[in-house]
């Protein structure tokens, strides 16, 4: 059952990335493209989270008691893999700052062109 959870989680992650790439490539609205970028990031985050997930695992918080009782080996056996969660946390922060800059730029572009259509904004760049 738990394998199913992981498998479906990967499938959903793949779908998120594909929807994101579709939005970047084919949707004309600037905000939709930006949402696409964020979806790609979220899909990758979900891959990382799924890697760290352990069926029936325990929370990976280590304490003095574990060492004194000699249960460190069992702890290492049962605990979820915590490194990916740290990576996801970092990537969420990076994603948020990228999103802020992207939205700031799109506000500027909207003020200039009065439109969020990428085809309209890049119209004059056809050589």
């Amino acid at each position, binding site marked *: 059952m738990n394998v199913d959870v992981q498998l479906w989680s990967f499938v959903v992650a793949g779908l998120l990335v594909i929807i994101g*790439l579709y939005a*970047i*490539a084919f949707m004309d609205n600037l905000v939709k493209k930006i949402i696409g970028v964020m979806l790609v990031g979220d899909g990758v985050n979900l891959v990382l989270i799924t890697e760290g997930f352990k069926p029936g695992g325990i929370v990976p918080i280590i304490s003095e008691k574990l060492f004194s009782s000699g249960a460190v080996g069992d702890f290492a056996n049962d605990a979820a893999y915590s490194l990916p969660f740290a990576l996801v946390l970092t990537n969420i922060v990076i994603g948020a700052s990228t999103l802020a800059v992207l939205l700031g730029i799109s506000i500027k572009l909207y003020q200039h062109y009065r439109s969020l259509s*990428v*085809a309209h*904004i*890049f119209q004059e*760049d*056809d*050589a």
Partner: protein
Amino acid sequence: MRSLYDTLHETLKSRGGTHIGGGFTAEYMLLAFFPLAFVALLRGLDSLTSAVLAILVTALVAFSLPLVKKVSRENSDHFAIAAFYIAIVMGLVLFLMVGGF
């Protein structure tokens, strides 16, 4: 048949005057670059196949002159063109890495 020079000259002229010379040089350099780049790319194959393919590419290039205008259109700053080539190359890189040659 009109001379190739005239065809080239007219195509380049239509893009503004200052770079007809540059356009000509670019045209000839592209002619040299394409077969060479393909020889470099197709090294994994045996020499006969790569030679035949390189000659084919040269022929293709020679029949689609003038190139400069096409190449510079494909290298413009437009978002859609960048997205198109990025999508193709991302697929190609993954295909070549995982599928092998």
